[in-house]
């Protein structure tokens, strides 16, 4: 079962009630179980809207017989709560998703909603807080935490409900580099430890590069998808829609334009540097 698709999206479109252009325009894609998927695209391209469709906060337009399946469950009115048990989302603004009065209260929020008995909550909550390294702040109030710490609490709140999928919707974009790296390394660890599937929406090219699969959105359309290598090597396409490309991909593109032949398997800055050094010594 290691390679099945945990998310299957087919022919999904969505328009917000008061707008004429669709926010999501006939999108289909799959996400492999246990994989890391990045979604990139400029502001307003529909990235957050897709996530809201996946966890049933929004309902796709009727046309084109759309279907959304999460962990083998077809998303309907009756299954939406089951689906939400499987998908945890960390949102962009650290303050606007902190519901509880203290760290422990906030981590418990999802458990309270699911009617978990108090006797179990007192066991689960400290464990989840410990997993994100926030134990010494258990009773701290959000006003006394940094943005990165609040995002760690948000992750703990998600871990507490033992989801299958964790979504970062620009979760690191309001953090300083240190906070950002902490969040990413926690998510990486948790992914390994609990066999999670990660979807990360990001403007940060290094973060996008952590993925197995990249989806590129533009004006509600999925314009390209594939491995980081295939997607980021489409330098001109990405530049056309105003997206960043990893620095070494830009160099590769420029070198190739100058008719310097590069092998296909250069996947990182280091490999490129090594190759160029060898090239130099050959000349």
């Amino acid at each position, binding site marked *: 079962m290691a390679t099945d698709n945990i998310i299957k999206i087919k022919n999904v479109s969505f328009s917000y009630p008061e707008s004429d252009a669709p926010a999501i325009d006939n999108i289909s894609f799959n996400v492999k179980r246990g994989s890391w998927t990045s979604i990139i695209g400029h502001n307003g391209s529909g990235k957050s809207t897709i996530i809201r469709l996946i966890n049933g906060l929004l309902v796709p337009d009727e046309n084109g017989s759309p279907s959304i399946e999460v962990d083998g469950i077809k998303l309907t009115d009756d299954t939406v709560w089951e689906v939400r048990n499987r998908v945890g989302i960390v949102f962009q603004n650290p303050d*606007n998703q902190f519901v509880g009065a203290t760290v422990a209260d906030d981590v418990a929020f999802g458990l*309270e909603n699911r009617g978990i008995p108090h006797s179990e909550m007192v066991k689960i909550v400290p464990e989840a807080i410990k997993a994100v390294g926030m134990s010494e702040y258990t009773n701290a109030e959000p006003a006394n935490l940094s943005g990165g710490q609040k995002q760690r609490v948000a992750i703990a709140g998600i871990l507490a409900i033992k989801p299958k999928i964790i979504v970062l919707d620009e979760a690191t974009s309001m953090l300083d580099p240190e906070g950002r790296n902490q969040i990413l390394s926690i998510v990486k660890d948790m992914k390994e430890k609990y066999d999670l599937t990660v979807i990360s929406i990001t403007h940060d090219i290094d973060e996008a590069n952590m993925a197995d699969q990249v989806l590129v959105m533009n004006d509600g359309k999925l314009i390209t998808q594939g491995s980081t290598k295939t997607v980021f090597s489409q330098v001109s396409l990405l530049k056309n829609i105003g997206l960043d490309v990893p620095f070494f991909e830009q160099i590769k593109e420029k070198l190739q334009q100058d008719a310097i032949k590069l092998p296909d398997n250069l996947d990182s800055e280091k490999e490129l540097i090594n190759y160029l050094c060898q090239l130099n010594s050959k000349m």
Partner: protein
Amino acid sequence: MSKILIGRYVAGDSIVYRMDPRGKLLATILFILFVFLANNPISYLIVTIFSLAAVAATKLKPKIFWDGVKPLIWLILFTSFLQLFFTVGGTVYWRWTIFALSSYGFTNAIFIFIRFTVIILISTVMTVTTKPLEIADAIEWLLKPLKLIRIPVDKIALVMSIALRFVPTLFDETFKIMNAQRSRGADFNNGGLVTRAKAITPLLVPLFINSLETAIDLSTAMESRGYRGDKGRTKFRVLKWSNVDFINLFYFVLLLGLLLVFRTH
């Protein structure tokens, strides 16, 4: 400044801090009701001693309690003076048109003064030793019977706790916006009332918009985290009665007994 919360909780460690907020809230309400039983010098002496004992039990500096009384001192004095000059009875010492000084006036003024002061003291004992969130929990408990008439007490309680949680966030926002406006030359501290009120307007609009955005984000996050109303919801934060609370409430029953015995019938 950003750490301000509603209420005036002061960190400390005494038996009052270890009491259940429900017990403290109940005791405060009972005390306020009981004070109205006092109607002669000895019963007023009893409530005074009782409230001072409660103040002492907090082991906090008297200044904290003086800070509680201070904002209301003029109201207290004004009300006492009204009693002093408008009560007629007993021996009348002085009289001029509608004003009079009488022995009844003196005692009434003193009684009113005591009544006000002890009520403020006891409420201060509660608010300085109990975190706002605990007070909200206690209010929720007190309102529970209203569920019978279909009042959504749990929802109200959640709203209260979220409101409390966002007070510092709103303060932060306000200061950020103020600084942003200041850096563009806005002046919030000078000028007359009208000028200052005008300076506040460009502060309120972004604050209002920010709050709306926060509310929308928050509701999205809550729903994503599985919030679906009160049905089947359990609670992580639970309050526990202890012996201290029973002893505390016993004292208040004792107070009631004493007042019933010593008041003038």
